[in-house]
């Protein structure tokens, strides 16, 4: 079973305790944006086979949203970090680089 550590309460939470929230670091485009911007924000997804950043909620724990870096092909977890981060923190990027040298995801590397 997939286990993620909640960055707030430090609990190693099983998948059954969590709710998946889809792709992370989406930049929101609302009224006044172009159709293309809105379409990309709303629907287009990276959906990679490999390193992925995503949102999770500790639904049956502290209830808070957090972010996780994970490999969608091996289910390996590289780390979790607070939802307030607009980009993956350096220690998370380093943890990924150690295992997946040369990785990229959108503009992050």
């Amino acid at each position: 079973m997939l286990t993620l550590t909640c960055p707030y309460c430090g609990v190693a939470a099983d998948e059954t305790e969590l709710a998946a929230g889809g792709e992370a670091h989406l930049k929101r485009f609302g009224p006044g944006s172009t159709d293309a911007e809105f379409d990309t924000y709303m629907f287009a997804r990276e959906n990679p086979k490999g390193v992925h950043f995503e949102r999770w909620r500790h639904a049956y724990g502290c209830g808070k949203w957090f972010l996780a870096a994970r490999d969608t092909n091996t289910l390996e977890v590289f780390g979790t970090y607070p939802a307030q981060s607009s980009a993956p923190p350096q220690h998370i990027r380093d943890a990924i680089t150690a295992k997946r040298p040369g990785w990229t995801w959108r503009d992050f590397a």
Partner: protein
Amino acid sequence: MKRYSVFAVAREALRNHMGWERAWRSPAPKVRYDAIIVGAGGHGLATAYYLGKNHGIRNVAILEKGWLGGGNTGRNTTIIRSNYLQDSSAAIYEKARSLYETLSQDLNYNVMFSPRGVMMLAQTQHEIRGYKRTAHANALQGVETEFIGPGRVKELCPIIHIDGPRYPVLGALWQPRGGTARHDAVAWGYARACSDMGMDIIQQCEVTAVHQADGKVTGVSTTKGEIACDRLGIVVAGHSGVLANMAGFRLPIESLCLQALVSEPIKPCMDVVVMANTVHGYMSQSDKGDMVIGGGTDGFNNYTQRGSFHHIEETVRALIETFPMISRLKMLRQWGGIVDMTGDRSPIISKTPLGNTYINCGWGTGGFKAIPGSGWAMADLMAKGEPGPLAEEFSMYRFREGKFIDESVAAGVAH
């Protein structure tokens, strides 16, 4: 190709079955093809078949990274129905269902289509209303369905427990000409027919890059070398995002793992397909006697073809309440497939930002039933460069334009 027939069986019986030919050739790739199709699942093979049959385009290669039919086509629970809500869905699913009726004769390959009837249980007041609405929509679309009461449900499927404490069966949407087919046979039948038309099915051949010049596709790199083409069809289900990335665009798709399981074989006890969407489980009995059970998808992006264990528990729990007699049945096997989910739960058959490149994907949890119709529509698109009436609403640009084909409300469940 030698045709299969009762005479062929008799002839081979007399000579110890030494005269059967291989069903398809396994050639080395040529340098160039008029059309390349990536993905030898049902949809890719059907696309190739109708390109040859309906449009006379036969210099075609179908490239498959694993073995043909080894993706979702060989992993699904084979339910075939066309009782969708929206007109464009009903049109393509009913086209597919009606092609299934004569597919065995058309391909000279027994796909074991069994129109035994499909019922979708209504277990809440909302479902009753929803299914009645679908039944009316189907009447207008010319798709034969009917809303039936609990008494009729019990008559058609005696092993159902209709007065469960939490979700009693209140009725069902019944499609008498829905049913099942043998999934492998659908892939194998199309493959044999494609090979017979001179098309090359190349297995163990993964596409690793898509090449372009002047905004148009020129060919692909594969694990078996470079192959040039005039037209490219991407038909790779769960890997659509990966191929789109190679071709330089993004899709409104996420890949999730959907699971299924089968029990030990038992004597015939159920001759219809039952789907219980509220409690999240569905079941039918295969010709071998095993109960074929489908369940839920994991909530997170996943390419592992395994699936989370607690979903099996949820599915089995729901089905034991609906069919108490299976409570002591042993489960034999469990597996997962990577399904390609769109936001409106409808597929994509579309031109793409790259010239002469077309994509067929987004069938998600329910594309086995659509294989013949989807191949038909995709072949039309690839041959003419423009979508025909079956495909035009399924453009990948419908999300930008707000023209959703919203089936997630009507059928937001694995099927």
